[in-house]
């Protein structure tokens, strides 16, 4: 996989290069700001771009650059990294796109296996969200009686949380020690309880489910 990195922290940037090399990926560019990354994407073919959210151009240069890259090269995957798991950043990421994109904490992807898995999933077209953030988003609205999420069972919340991380049905089944068929039933029930339209594609409805509890989080209170 051909990967480009934009990160203003030199130590972490160099570390990412080593990790990517260890995972067998080719680093085609390694820069300290969004504008320089944009210049690289104009001349090089890149499978996935890794961007720090808080980098020049300040304050959220990574998000602005990601948006520009997506507009210019829709097939290029985007992995946005931050030290903070913030709903606001997630909403911005989802505004950019809901496919071939990820948002993860820096120290959580600081390992060959995790980083490689995250990049593979993004390159395959998935959305990858930091599990901590996905869990928080599910738990908060679930605790409120007026939230549509409150109608979900505990098991359905587990499934929804894993869906929010971008996991496929088989991966969810493996995580919860149930069959894929059971997961499908739970997902159908989640879609019904959240009132998601039945004429959408399965992938689209999964994203809508995530957005439903994002909205629930932001409008509650």
């Amino acid at each position, binding site marked *: 996989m051909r990967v480009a990195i934009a990160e203003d*922290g030199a130590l*972490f940037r160099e570390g*990412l290069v080593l990790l990517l090399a260890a995972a067998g990926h080719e680093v085609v560019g390694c820069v300290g700001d969004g504008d320089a990354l944009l210049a690289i994407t104009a001349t090089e073919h890149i499978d996935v771009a890794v961007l720090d959210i808080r980098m020049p151009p300040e304050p959220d240069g990574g998000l602005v650059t990601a948006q520009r890259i997506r507009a210019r090269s829709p097939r290029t995957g985007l992995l946005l990294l931050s030290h903070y798991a913030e709903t606001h950043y997630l909403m911005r990421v989802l505004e950019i796109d809901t496919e071939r994109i990820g948002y993860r904490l820096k120290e959580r992807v600081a390992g060959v296996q995790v980083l490689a898995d995250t990049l593979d999933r993004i390159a395959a077209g998935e959305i990858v969200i930091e599990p901590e953030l996905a869990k928080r988003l599910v738990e908060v609205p679930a605790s409120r009686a007026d939230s549509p999420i409150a109608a979900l069972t505990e098991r359905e919340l587990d499934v929804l949380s894993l869906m929010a991380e971008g996991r496929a049905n088989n991966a969810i089944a493996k995580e919860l020690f149930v069959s894929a068929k059971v997961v499908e039933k739970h997902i159908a029930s989640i879609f019904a309880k959240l009132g998601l339209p039945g004429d959408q594609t399965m992938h689209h409805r999964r994203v809508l489910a995530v957005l439903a509890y994002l909205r629930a989080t932001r409008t509650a*209170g």
Partner: protein
Amino acid sequence: MVGGVRWDSRRGRWLPGLLRAPDRWIAECRYGLEQSLHDGAATGMSAVAIELDLIAAAVGDPRLGARIDAVRDTVCQAVDELRHLGSAIYPPVLGGAGLEPAWRALAERRGLRLRLDLPGYDIGEEARARTGLLVADYLHTLSSATMVLVRVRGRRFVRVRITEAEPGRSRRRYFWGVLRCA
């Protein structure tokens, strides 16, 4: 930061407590501190986590590898602590996104039920930073499930009013503050 609230027995209600906003210098100082923590310590420790992962993968001894993994977990926990500290010093999205996203993020983490009544215009950078910190500091003192209404008005003289109702308490408490901004 928060002045004491007093009970007005004649009227049967709490008198509004006074909130003291951080001045401009304090707000700038806190912003700088959070930036230093983020760009320095937190990023450096994440780089250490990467190095440890690479070392653990390179060593042939499984026992040594397990010990390195344990150290790596400790480093990740330390980064998490820094994250909490940084957020308390200066809400990470306050500078880039403004009051509402910063307060909502805080309310989400603390399990508060937050309602906002904000002006439809930009109150300016200084007022945003100082008002943001004033209310964020206050939200940090509240227990989970507390209902909070924050109202902001004004531009040069920014007026903040907070109404709060803790779960299990029948009476609401009121706080207010005024910031004179350049």
